[in-house]
Protein backbone atom coordinates (compact mmCIF):
# COMPACT_ATOMS: atom_id res chain seq x y z
CA UNK A 1 0.00 0.00 0.00
CA UNK A 2 1.49 3.35 -1.05
CA UNK A 3 1.42 6.42 1.18
CA UNK A 4 -1.20 7.97 -1.08
CA UNK A 5 -3.45 4.90 -0.77
CA UNK A 6 -3.04 4.97 2.99
CA UNK A 7 -4.04 8.64 3.12
CA UNK A 8 -7.08 7.87 0.93
CA UNK A 9 -8.02 4.93 3.19
CA UNK A 10 -7.85 7.04 6.36
CA UNK A 11 -9.67 10.02 4.83
CA UNK A 12 -12.46 7.99 3.25
CA UNK A 13 -14.44 7.77 6.52
CA UNK A 14 -14.44 11.58 6.78
CA UNK A 15 -14.83 12.68 3.16
CA UNK A 16 -16.60 9.79 1.42
CA UNK A 17 -16.76 10.13 -2.40
CA UNK A 18 -14.88 13.46 -2.31
CA UNK A 19 -11.74 11.93 -0.80
CA UNK A 20 -9.55 11.57 -3.89
CA UNK A 21 -10.46 15.02 -5.23
CA UNK A 22 -9.94 16.63 -1.82
CA UNK A 23 -6.50 15.07 -1.43
CA UNK A 24 -5.59 16.03 -5.00
CA UNK A 25 -6.56 19.61 -4.22
CA UNK A 26 -4.39 19.74 -1.06
CA UNK A 27 -1.49 18.10 -2.95
CA UNK A 28 -1.85 20.71 -5.69
CA UNK A 29 -1.43 23.45 -3.07
CA UNK A 30 1.75 21.74 -1.87
CA UNK A 31 2.86 21.14 -5.47
CA UNK A 32 3.01 17.37 -5.00
CA UNK A 33 1.86 14.71 -7.43
CA UNK A 34 -0.58 12.60 -5.33
CA UNK A 35 0.63 9.10 -6.35
CA UNK A 36 4.17 10.22 -5.49
CA UNK A 37 3.34 11.23 -1.93
CA UNK A 38 6.20 10.47 0.48
CA UNK A 39 6.29 10.13 4.25
CA UNK A 40 8.12 13.47 4.47
CA UNK A 41 5.17 15.18 2.78
CA UNK A 42 2.71 14.02 5.42
CA UNK A 43 3.13 16.76 8.09
CA UNK A 44 2.49 19.51 5.52
CA UNK A 45 -0.35 17.58 3.87
CA UNK A 46 -1.92 16.84 7.26
CA UNK A 47 -1.83 20.54 8.15
CA UNK A 48 -3.51 21.61 4.90
CA UNK A 49 -6.00 18.78 5.04
CA UNK A 50 -6.94 19.97 8.53
CA UNK A 51 -7.47 23.52 7.24
CA UNK A 52 -9.41 22.38 4.16
CA UNK A 53 -11.54 19.88 6.07
CA UNK A 54 -12.33 22.59 8.62
CA UNK A 55 -14.30 24.37 5.91
CA UNK A 56 -16.40 21.26 5.25
CA UNK A 57 -16.94 19.72 8.68
CA UNK A 58 -16.70 20.67 12.32
CA UNK A 59 -13.28 21.65 13.58
CA UNK A 60 -12.93 18.73 15.95
CA UNK A 61 -13.42 16.16 13.20
CA UNK A 62 -11.11 18.08 10.86
CA UNK A 63 -8.32 18.05 13.45
CA UNK A 64 -8.95 14.36 14.05
CA UNK A 65 -8.45 13.69 10.32
CA UNK A 66 -5.32 15.85 10.29
CA UNK A 67 -3.84 13.94 13.26
CA UNK A 68 -4.58 10.58 11.62
CA UNK A 69 -2.88 11.58 8.38
CA UNK A 70 0.09 12.97 10.30
CA UNK A 71 0.51 9.73 12.24
CA UNK A 72 0.72 7.53 9.14
Amino acid at each position, binding site marked *: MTIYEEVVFVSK*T*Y*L*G*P*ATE*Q*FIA*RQCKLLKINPPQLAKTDLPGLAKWMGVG*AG*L*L*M*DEKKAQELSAKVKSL
Partner: protein
Amino acid sequence: MKATIRNKLVWGFSGVLLLLASVAAIGIYAVFSLRHSAQDATRIGGRLNAMALEIQVHNLEAQRRVKNYLLQVKSLGPEKARELYLDEADFEIAAIDSLASKAVAIAPTADKREKFQKIVDRAGVYKLALAAAVKAAEKDPDSQEATVSKAAYDQAADQLHDNAEDGEMVGREASQASQIDIDVTSRRSVALTIGISFVGMLLGATMSYKLSRAILVPVEHLKDVAENVSLGNLEVAVRRYSDDEIGDLADSFSRMVTAVKFFRMEAEEVHAHDGVEGQ
Protein backbone atom coordinates in the same frame (compact mmCIF):
# COMPACT_ATOMS: atom_id res chain seq x y z
CA MET B 1 -20.77 -5.36 24.00
CA LYS B 2 -21.71 -2.50 21.67
CA ALA B 3 -24.93 -0.71 22.63
CA THR B 4 -26.60 -1.16 19.23
CA ILE B 5 -30.35 -0.72 18.76
CA ARG B 6 -30.60 -4.48 18.28
CA ASN B 7 -28.77 -5.14 21.58
CA LYS B 8 -30.83 -2.49 23.38
CA LEU B 9 -34.04 -4.13 22.15
CA VAL B 10 -32.83 -7.63 22.98
CA TRP B 11 -31.74 -6.61 26.51
CA GLY B 12 -34.83 -4.49 27.05
CA PHE B 13 -37.24 -7.27 26.15
CA SER B 14 -35.14 -9.86 28.01
CA GLY B 15 -35.41 -7.66 31.10
CA VAL B 16 -39.18 -7.40 30.76
CA LEU B 17 -39.43 -11.18 30.24
CA LEU B 18 -37.24 -11.76 33.30
CA LEU B 19 -39.49 -9.53 35.38
CA LEU B 20 -42.58 -11.35 34.17
CA ALA B 21 -40.91 -14.68 34.97
CA SER B 22 -40.07 -13.37 38.48
CA VAL B 23 -43.68 -12.37 39.07
CA ALA B 24 -44.84 -15.78 37.83
CA ALA B 25 -42.27 -17.54 40.07
CA ILE B 26 -43.43 -15.55 43.11
CA GLY B 27 -47.04 -16.42 42.28
CA ILE B 28 -46.18 -20.12 42.02
CA TYR B 29 -44.16 -19.93 45.24
CA ALA B 30 -47.13 -18.29 46.99
CA VAL B 31 -49.54 -20.99 45.81
CA PHE B 32 -47.23 -23.83 46.87
CA SER B 33 -46.41 -22.13 50.16
CA LEU B 34 -50.11 -21.68 50.95
CA ARG B 35 -50.80 -25.28 50.00
CA HIS B 36 -47.99 -26.44 52.26
CA SER B 37 -49.28 -24.34 55.16
CA ALA B 38 -52.81 -25.65 54.61
CA GLN B 39 -51.53 -29.22 54.63
CA ASP B 40 -49.61 -28.53 57.85
CA ALA B 41 -52.72 -27.04 59.41
CA THR B 42 -54.81 -30.07 58.58
CA ARG B 43 -52.15 -32.60 59.47
CA ILE B 44 -50.66 -31.31 62.72
CA GLY B 45 -53.67 -29.51 64.17
CA GLY B 46 -56.01 -32.33 63.23
CA ARG B 47 -53.71 -35.00 64.58
CA LEU B 48 -53.18 -33.23 67.91
CA ASN B 49 -56.91 -32.72 68.25
CA ALA B 50 -57.63 -36.35 67.45
CA MET B 51 -54.95 -37.53 69.89
CA ALA B 52 -56.37 -35.38 72.68
CA LEU B 53 -59.86 -36.77 72.02
CA GLU B 54 -58.50 -40.32 71.99
CA ILE B 55 -56.77 -39.64 75.33
CA GLN B 56 -60.13 -38.48 76.71
CA VAL B 57 -61.83 -41.67 75.53
CA HIS B 58 -59.10 -43.87 77.03
CA ASN B 59 -59.28 -41.89 80.28
CA LEU B 60 -63.06 -42.31 80.54
CA GLU B 61 -62.78 -46.00 79.74
CA ALA B 62 -60.04 -46.46 82.33
CA GLN B 63 -62.11 -44.63 84.97
CA ARG B 64 -65.18 -46.75 84.17
CA ARG B 65 -63.18 -49.95 84.56
CA VAL B 66 -61.46 -48.82 87.76
CA LYS B 67 -64.81 -47.75 89.19
CA ASN B 68 -66.25 -51.22 88.45
CA TYR B 69 -63.19 -52.84 89.94
CA LEU B 70 -63.44 -50.85 93.17
CA LEU B 71 -67.17 -51.62 93.42
CA GLN B 72 -66.81 -55.32 92.81
CA VAL B 73 -63.48 -56.17 94.39
CA LYS B 74 -65.20 -57.20 97.57
CA SER B 75 -67.83 -59.48 95.96
CA LEU B 76 -65.67 -60.98 93.16
CA GLY B 77 -62.40 -61.13 95.03
CA PRO B 78 -59.20 -59.29 94.01
CA GLU B 79 -58.01 -61.78 91.38
CA LYS B 80 -61.26 -62.09 89.46
CA ALA B 81 -61.93 -58.33 89.65
CA ARG B 82 -58.40 -57.55 88.49
CA GLU B 83 -58.79 -59.95 85.57
CA LEU B 84 -62.17 -58.49 84.60
CA TYR B 85 -61.47 -54.78 84.97
CA LEU B 86 -58.04 -53.74 86.09
CA ASP B 87 -55.98 -55.33 83.30
CA GLU B 88 -58.06 -53.46 80.75
CA ALA B 89 -57.68 -50.22 82.75
CA ASP B 90 -53.88 -50.70 82.67
CA PHE B 91 -54.07 -51.06 78.89
CA GLU B 92 -56.06 -47.80 78.65
CA ILE B 93 -53.52 -45.95 80.81
CA ALA B 94 -50.64 -47.27 78.67
CA ALA B 95 -52.50 -46.01 75.58
CA ILE B 96 -52.87 -42.54 77.18
CA ASP B 97 -49.14 -42.51 77.94
CA SER B 98 -48.21 -43.52 74.40
CA LEU B 99 -50.58 -41.04 72.72
CA ALA B 100 -49.41 -38.14 74.87
CA SER B 101 -45.74 -38.97 74.12
CA LYS B 102 -46.47 -39.02 70.37
CA ALA B 103 -48.29 -35.68 70.69
CA VAL B 104 -45.24 -34.19 72.47
CA ALA B 105 -43.11 -35.32 69.51
CA ILE B 106 -45.27 -33.66 66.82
CA ALA B 107 -46.48 -30.54 68.65
CA PRO B 108 -45.24 -27.51 66.63
CA THR B 109 -44.28 -25.18 69.52
CA ALA B 110 -42.73 -25.44 72.99
CA ASP B 111 -45.89 -24.34 74.84
CA LYS B 112 -47.96 -26.95 73.00
CA ARG B 113 -45.36 -29.63 73.74
CA GLU B 114 -45.52 -28.60 77.39
CA LYS B 115 -49.30 -29.17 77.49
CA PHE B 116 -48.94 -32.72 76.19
CA GLN B 117 -45.96 -33.37 78.46
CA LYS B 118 -48.29 -32.51 81.35
CA ILE B 119 -50.61 -35.31 80.21
CA VAL B 120 -47.66 -37.74 80.23
CA ASP B 121 -46.70 -36.60 83.76
CA ARG B 122 -50.31 -36.70 84.92
CA ALA B 123 -50.70 -40.25 83.57
CA GLY B 124 -47.77 -41.23 85.82
CA VAL B 125 -49.47 -39.64 88.86
CA TYR B 126 -52.74 -41.35 87.85
CA LYS B 127 -50.98 -44.74 87.75
CA LEU B 128 -49.53 -44.23 91.24
CA ALA B 129 -52.92 -43.11 92.63
CA LEU B 130 -54.59 -46.12 91.05
CA ALA B 131 -51.99 -48.50 92.50
CA ALA B 132 -52.55 -47.02 95.98
CA ALA B 133 -56.36 -47.23 95.63
CA VAL B 134 -56.16 -50.84 94.41
CA LYS B 135 -53.82 -51.80 97.23
CA ALA B 136 -56.09 -50.26 99.88
CA ALA B 137 -59.26 -51.77 98.33
CA GLU B 138 -57.73 -55.24 98.16
CA LYS B 139 -56.73 -54.97 101.81
CA ASP B 140 -60.10 -53.68 103.05
CA PRO B 141 -62.53 -51.88 100.73
CA ASP B 142 -64.45 -50.34 103.65
CA SER B 143 -61.43 -48.96 105.48
CA GLN B 144 -60.59 -45.30 105.94
CA GLU B 145 -57.40 -45.79 103.90
CA ALA B 146 -59.41 -47.18 100.96
CA THR B 147 -61.72 -44.15 101.04
CA VAL B 148 -58.82 -41.70 101.13
CA SER B 149 -56.96 -43.58 98.38
CA LYS B 150 -60.09 -43.63 96.20
CA ALA B 151 -60.53 -39.87 96.68
CA ALA B 152 -56.89 -39.34 95.65
CA TYR B 153 -57.45 -41.57 92.64
CA ASP B 154 -60.62 -39.61 91.66
CA GLN B 155 -58.68 -36.37 91.94
CA ALA B 156 -55.86 -37.74 89.72
CA ALA B 157 -58.44 -38.94 87.18
CA ASP B 158 -60.11 -35.50 87.12
CA GLN B 159 -56.76 -33.79 86.64
CA LEU B 160 -55.89 -36.15 83.81
CA HIS B 161 -59.26 -35.32 82.28
CA ASP B 162 -58.53 -31.57 82.60
CA ASN B 163 -55.09 -31.98 81.04
CA ALA B 164 -56.56 -33.98 78.16
CA GLU B 165 -59.06 -31.17 77.61
CA ASP B 166 -56.14 -28.72 77.51
CA GLY B 167 -54.55 -30.96 74.87
CA GLU B 168 -57.74 -30.86 72.84
CA MET B 169 -57.63 -27.06 73.00
CA VAL B 170 -53.98 -27.09 71.92
CA GLY B 171 -54.93 -29.16 68.85
CA ARG B 172 -57.56 -26.60 67.90
CA GLU B 173 -55.09 -23.76 68.51
CA ALA B 174 -52.51 -25.49 66.29
CA SER B 175 -55.06 -25.51 63.46
CA GLN B 176 -55.80 -21.84 64.09
CA ALA B 177 -52.08 -20.97 64.24
CA SER B 178 -51.60 -22.66 60.87
CA GLN B 179 -54.55 -20.68 59.58
CA ILE B 180 -52.77 -17.50 60.75
CA ASP B 181 -49.63 -18.73 58.96
CA ILE B 182 -51.66 -19.12 55.77
CA ASP B 183 -53.06 -15.60 56.15
CA VAL B 184 -49.58 -14.14 56.79
CA THR B 185 -48.05 -16.03 53.84
CA SER B 186 -50.87 -15.05 51.50
CA ARG B 187 -50.69 -11.39 52.59
CA ARG B 188 -46.90 -11.40 52.16
CA SER B 189 -47.16 -13.08 48.75
CA VAL B 190 -49.78 -10.64 47.53
CA ALA B 191 -47.73 -7.65 48.76
CA LEU B 192 -44.57 -9.08 47.18
CA THR B 193 -46.31 -9.78 43.87
CA ILE B 194 -47.84 -6.29 43.80
CA GLY B 195 -44.45 -4.75 44.71
CA ILE B 196 -42.54 -6.68 42.03
CA SER B 197 -45.25 -5.96 39.45
CA PHE B 198 -45.09 -2.25 40.32
CA VAL B 199 -41.28 -2.22 40.04
CA GLY B 200 -41.61 -4.17 36.77
CA MET B 201 -44.11 -1.66 35.42
CA LEU B 202 -41.87 1.23 36.48
CA LEU B 203 -38.81 -0.37 34.90
CA GLY B 204 -40.79 -1.26 31.77
CA ALA B 205 -42.03 2.32 31.44
CA THR B 206 -38.52 3.74 32.03
CA MET B 207 -37.03 1.25 29.58
CA SER B 208 -39.65 2.08 26.93
CA TYR B 209 -39.07 5.82 27.44
CA LYS B 210 -35.27 5.46 27.22
CA LEU B 211 -35.49 3.15 24.23
CA SER B 212 -37.89 5.41 22.34
CA ARG B 213 -35.69 8.45 23.17
CA ALA B 214 -32.59 6.55 22.04
CA ILE B 215 -34.23 5.89 18.68
CA LEU B 216 -36.44 8.94 18.18
CA VAL B 217 -34.04 11.77 19.11
CA PRO B 218 -31.28 10.86 16.61
CA VAL B 219 -33.84 9.94 13.93
CA GLU B 220 -35.56 13.33 14.34
CA HIS B 221 -32.17 15.06 14.17
CA LEU B 222 -31.29 13.17 10.96
CA LYS B 223 -34.69 14.05 9.52
CA ASP B 224 -34.03 17.77 10.19
CA VAL B 225 -30.54 17.52 8.66
CA ALA B 226 -31.90 15.72 5.56
CA GLU B 227 -34.60 18.36 5.19
CA ASN B 228 -32.00 21.19 5.39
CA VAL B 229 -29.68 19.48 2.90
CA SER B 230 -32.56 18.80 0.50
CA LEU B 231 -33.38 22.54 0.63
CA GLY B 232 -29.77 23.44 -0.19
CA ASN B 233 -28.54 24.29 3.31
CA LEU B 234 -25.30 22.35 3.70
CA GLU B 235 -24.16 24.26 6.81
CA VAL B 236 -25.84 21.88 9.16
CA ALA B 237 -23.94 19.87 11.72
CA VAL B 238 -24.65 16.15 11.77
CA ARG B 239 -24.41 14.90 15.33
CA ARG B 240 -23.60 11.37 16.31
CA TYR B 241 -25.90 10.78 19.27
CA SER B 242 -25.10 7.17 20.04
CA ASP B 243 -22.68 4.41 19.24
CA ASP B 244 -25.23 2.28 17.41
CA GLU B 245 -26.77 1.78 13.95
CA ILE B 246 -28.26 5.30 14.01
CA GLY B 247 -24.82 6.68 14.95
CA ASP B 248 -23.35 4.86 11.94
CA LEU B 249 -26.13 6.28 9.76
CA ALA B 250 -25.30 9.79 11.06
CA ASP B 251 -21.63 9.23 10.12
CA SER B 252 -22.59 8.12 6.60
CA PHE B 253 -24.88 11.11 6.24
CA SER B 254 -22.17 13.43 7.53
CA ARG B 255 -19.71 12.04 4.95
CA MET B 256 -22.27 12.56 2.23
CA VAL B 257 -22.93 16.17 3.28
CA THR B 258 -19.16 16.85 3.45
CA ALA B 259 -18.71 15.44 -0.08
CA VAL B 260 -21.62 17.46 -1.43
CA LYS B 261 -20.20 20.60 0.20
CA PHE B 262 -16.81 19.93 -1.32
CA PHE B 263 -18.19 19.24 -4.80
CA ARG B 264 -20.31 22.37 -4.61
CA MET B 265 -17.29 24.42 -3.51
CA GLU B 266 -15.25 23.03 -6.42
CA ALA B 267 -18.07 23.68 -8.87
CA GLU B 268 -18.38 27.29 -7.60
CA GLU B 269 -14.64 27.80 -8.01
CA VAL B 270 -14.69 26.40 -11.56
CA HIS B 271 -17.66 28.62 -12.32
CA ALA B 272 -15.87 31.70 -10.89
CA HIS B 273 -12.69 30.82 -12.81
CA ASP B 274 -14.67 30.45 -16.05
CA GLY B 275 -16.30 33.80 -15.36
CA VAL B 276 -12.92 35.49 -14.87
CA GLU B 277 -11.55 33.91 -18.06
CA GLY B 278 -14.69 34.97 -19.97
CA GLN B 279 -14.13 38.60 -19.03
